[in-house]
């Protein structure tokens, strides 16, 4: 029997075997990426070495459109960026223009705007709850979340005429008035939701499987958040007490009593996915508190302030930021005094948060990466605009 040298496998030779990283495409069509996001992952046997997000699949160049539309016509366009929190987008835009014009919004309109924005926050966080659970494999909470959202969307449909893209908050006020029937239904919803939220938290948040999948995963420290410009629930989950409704109040938030929820790291490390989930769940309770205070304090009066028929914003620039359910939304407007904006730039929180995916990914397993993407709660409409 001749000696086949190719069968010699001494330890010296096996050290020369090299392995390559496997490039995996978490493509634009994927149930867990919350939209058309493409992430190119380089993995070494289940552990990710590098992840690069590729954006632009939903880019509609809204900023170019805004340079050809008058100020009132931009409101339907602004809705369509973060389509799951359209009221907050409209409110931010209207605040920017009203600050430049100096219009005064009547009290009743302020209360209605706050109530509607907080209801929108509850709806958006419910959507996060449902889709995060379904990303991790739990199918029931998705339908419970959508059933709760139905109540909110029906109220919005009767107020504004549409279920998702409202065009309701206008320059100087709101479009239609809220009737007593709406107020009664909102009060009934608030009373019901507190108990239901406790149930939903027990079902998903305290479940051991969910805890094992999200605690100690995707940890973001406060320094990381500052460097990446993360805002909103992500920043608060990392321990920083920064809520624009308290630190830079707009509307009537100064008169309302609520807390900003900060993560504590009780299930794992401070700033992990479980903290981000928990901050959003507790924020829903705070929103219900705010809605109850608005219901008690709402005043009679007009719902539209004085805005001229053709809106002309004086020359200058402004940057106005508001607290959206997903983070901090900013509008940077440069105006030259005409009927159409010269440059309107939207600072979307989800765009800056997508950059953190490539920071969180190295060293995680692919299943952990799915949990991390879900926990930063991005909506591609806002990322790509």
């Amino acid at each position, binding site marked *: 029997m001749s000696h086949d040298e190719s069968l010699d496998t001494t330890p010296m030779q096996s050290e020369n075997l090299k392995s390559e990283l496997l490039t995996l495409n978490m493509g634009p069509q994927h149930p867990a990426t919350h939209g058309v996001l493409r992430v190119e992952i380089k993995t070494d046997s289940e*552990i990710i070495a590098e992840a690069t997000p590729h954006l632009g699949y939903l880019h509609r160049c809204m900023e170019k459109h805004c340079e050809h539309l008058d100020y009132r016509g931009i409101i339907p366009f602004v809705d369509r960026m973060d389509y799951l929190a359209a009221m907050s987008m409209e409110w931010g835009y209207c605040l920017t223009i009203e600050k430049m014009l100096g219009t005064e919004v009547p009290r009743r309109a302020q209360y209605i705007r706050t109530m509607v924005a907080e209801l929108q926050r509850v709806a958006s966080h419910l959507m996060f709850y449902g889709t995060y659970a379904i990303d991790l494999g739990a199918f*029931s909470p998705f339908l419970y979340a959508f059933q709760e959202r139905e109540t909110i969307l029906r109220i919005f449909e*009767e107020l504004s005429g549409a279920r998702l893209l409202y065009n309701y908050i206008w320059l100087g006020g709101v479009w239609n008035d809220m009737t007593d029937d709406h107020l009664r239904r909102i009060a009934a919803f608030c009373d019901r939701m507190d108990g239901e939220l406790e149930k939903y938290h*027990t079902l998903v948040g305290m479940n051991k499987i969910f805890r094992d999948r999200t605690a*100690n995963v995707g940890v973001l420290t406060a320094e990381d958040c500052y460097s990446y410009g993360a805002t909103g629930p992500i920043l608060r989950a990392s321990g920083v007490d920064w809520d624009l409704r308290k630190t830079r109040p707009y509307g009537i938030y100064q008169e309302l009593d609520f807390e900003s929820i900060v993560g504590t790291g009780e299930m794992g490390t401070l700033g992990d996915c479980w903290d981000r989930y928990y901050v959003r769940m507790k924020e829903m309770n705070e929103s219900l508190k705010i809605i109850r205070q608005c219901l008690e304090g709402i005043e009679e009066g007009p719902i539209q302030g004085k805005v001229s028929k053709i809106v002309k914003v004086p020359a200058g620039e402004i940057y106005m930021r508001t607290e959206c359910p997903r983070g901090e939304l900013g509008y940077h407007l440069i105006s030259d005094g005409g009927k159409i904006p010269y440059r309107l730039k939207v600072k979307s929180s989800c765009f800056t948060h997508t950059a953190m995916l490539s920071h969180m990914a*190295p*060293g995680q397993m692919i299943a952990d990466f799915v949990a991390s993407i879900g926990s930063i709660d991005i909506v591609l409409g806002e990322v790509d605009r």
Partner: protein
Amino acid sequence: MNSKTENLQRYDKPLTFTGWFKNVWTSVTTVLKGLSITIRYVYAEKPVTIEYPEVREPLPENSRSRLFNDVENCISCYQCATACPVDCIYIAATRRDKEAEKIKTKDGTAIRLDLQQYTIDTALCCYCGLCTTVCPTHCLTHSTDYEFSAYTVNDMKYDYLAKDIRMWRDRIVKD
């Protein structure tokens, strides 16, 4: 091949003997608590599904669905076309003769222009409602029809001067 498990970032504490039993206990209790909630939905709660298309819930009155323009009352002021953010309304009109008989709309405004073309491209329309708010005679309104899909994109352009669309007036316009 060197497996890179040492690159794996985990912050867990190492597992102890009592830790293992504690894990089993919390797993069993939390899953049972969750199951009690879901099983209650199976037996104790009523289903909320609306079985479309056998059951159709009516939309609210101010729902912003398909547009309808009552051309007999339209004064061709072009407010809707200028307000539209996506420019989907196409209007052309001629001036009426001074000697022609004077006609008025429902609420008394004089009609000075003859409408020759009033087309809305409902495929472009974003259903924002800005056109209906600026209409001075309220002839342009949103109806509550939401089932109007068509086979070609050209069928989505509605010519409101055509006879078949004018017949909707009895159903939609409430005098």
